[in-house]
């Protein structure tokens, strides 16, 4: 049944890019905005180290708080002071431990993320920074600690790697190339990528910034919380300044 209803065109000239995701319309402008920003250093955290620090903090809190009851030489009247000291140690350990674990998880995503994006990068395109992003709103609470996506800033555009399941390992998804979708956002347009806005709970603003991304082909923007963590955040902060100033 081949061959009927044949149509023909001829003589067209194109530039083929090897099936790469095409650059958004604002890529050149975004490139100008990103001029002078150098790629972020590799992250150096450790998930195991961070978890261990958190656990040590809990153990230290229990021992310090109960010290007046366990050690005879300590005045039992100082119970309150020891409890506050224990709480301070716990908070410090939790802050540093969670930070270390979170940067460790970002570091682990780095290699598979680069493999996933590599085939779409143009010759003059380089990765500046990336972050493991959390969806804001109800989804944030639904997804918990599992990253809902990875935002990758290059000097031409913003890639958004969205995971389709909150309950599967993002590293495995990246390695198997299953359960994820690679999308492209126009960093130069306010519609494509916009910083700012309210996050719930409001205390999130102490630890993250809100970035609303509307990938090409999608009809609405989805807000993400970009956490203020590691050396990638230092670069993303510069990118944010350039994007908000323009």
């Amino acid at each position: 049944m081949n061959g009927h209803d044949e149509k023909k065109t001829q003589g067209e000239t194109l530039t083929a890019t090897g099936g790469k995701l095409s650059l958004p319309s604002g890529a050149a402008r975004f490139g100008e905005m990103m001029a002078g920003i150098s790629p972020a250093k590799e992250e150096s955290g450790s998930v195991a180290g961070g978890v261990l620090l958190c656990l040590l903090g809990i153990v230290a809190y229990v021992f310090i708080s109960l010290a007046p009851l366990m050690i005879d030489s300590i005045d039992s009247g100082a119970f309150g002071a020891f409890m506050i000291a224990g709480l301070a140690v716990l908070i410090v350990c939790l802050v540093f431990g969670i930070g270390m674990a979170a940067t460790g998880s970002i570091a682990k995503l780095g290699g598979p993320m680069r493999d996933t994006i590599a085939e779409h990068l143009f010759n003059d395109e380089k990765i500046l920074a990336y972050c493991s992003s959390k969806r804001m709103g109800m989804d944030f609470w639904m997804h918990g600690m599992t990253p809902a996506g990875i935002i990758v800033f290059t000097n031409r555009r913003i890639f958004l790697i969205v995971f389709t399941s909150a309950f599967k390992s993002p590293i495995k998804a990246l390695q198997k190339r299953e359960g994820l979708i690679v999308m492209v956002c126009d960093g130069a347009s306010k519609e494509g990528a916009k910083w700012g806005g309210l996050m719930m709970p409001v205390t999130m603003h102490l630890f993250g910034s809100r970035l609303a991304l509307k990938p090409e082909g999608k009809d609405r923007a989805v807000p993400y919380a970009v956490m203020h963590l590691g050396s990638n955040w230092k670069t993303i902060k510069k990118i944010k300044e350039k994007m908000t100033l323009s």
Partner: protein
Amino acid sequence: MTLETPVATVEYLPPPGWECDPRPPVQRGDGCLYKHLLRLGKKTVGLVAVSTSRTLGTALENDAFLALVAVEGGITGLEKRQSAFCSGGMDGCRWEMDFFLDGTPFVAELFALRGDGRAKGPEILVSCWGAAEDPRNAEWIARSISCVRRVNPARKRAVALMIAGFLAALCGLLLTAITYDMAASGDAPEYVGFVGLVVVGTIVFLQGIWRLLSGRPGKSE
């Protein structure tokens, strides 16, 4: 080889010596493109893809051509010839293309197929390319394809929401009925109304109906 996607499972047979390389799915237009690149040694010579939206239909736009014929370089003198194609329950369009890639004569073949003559649903795309004298294998792959459609994941999720909502509301009503019965028989001082469970269950159930009717994909997609 099997190309698993949330909307369909596609089985195909690559020519001897060809290897498939699964690539990460990408957003294309308002849908998603799942693809296997076909390699002969280190050279990429073709692809098999499933598109969740209408990528080609009956016209081959240049951006679709560039996305599905993964060559790199300057293309001149591109000629496209379109014809209808039908094989073993799959029908659609076939494009044959001649062009010069950086001055070298090249040919490409592309098939856009749908199962059971459906106008909607996933589109299966097969394309192969190579130098003009290379054997043409796209038709061979296209004829080997078999496709099993899957339930739309958005609708699947919607049904799950409806079931969860219904069960929560039912649970709330049953618990209320049990405590009411206990209060009536004097075993408990008064009955407890599980209003929250019923209300939340109803809202979740209605959300499920809304998603089912609108076919809206989940937020995580």
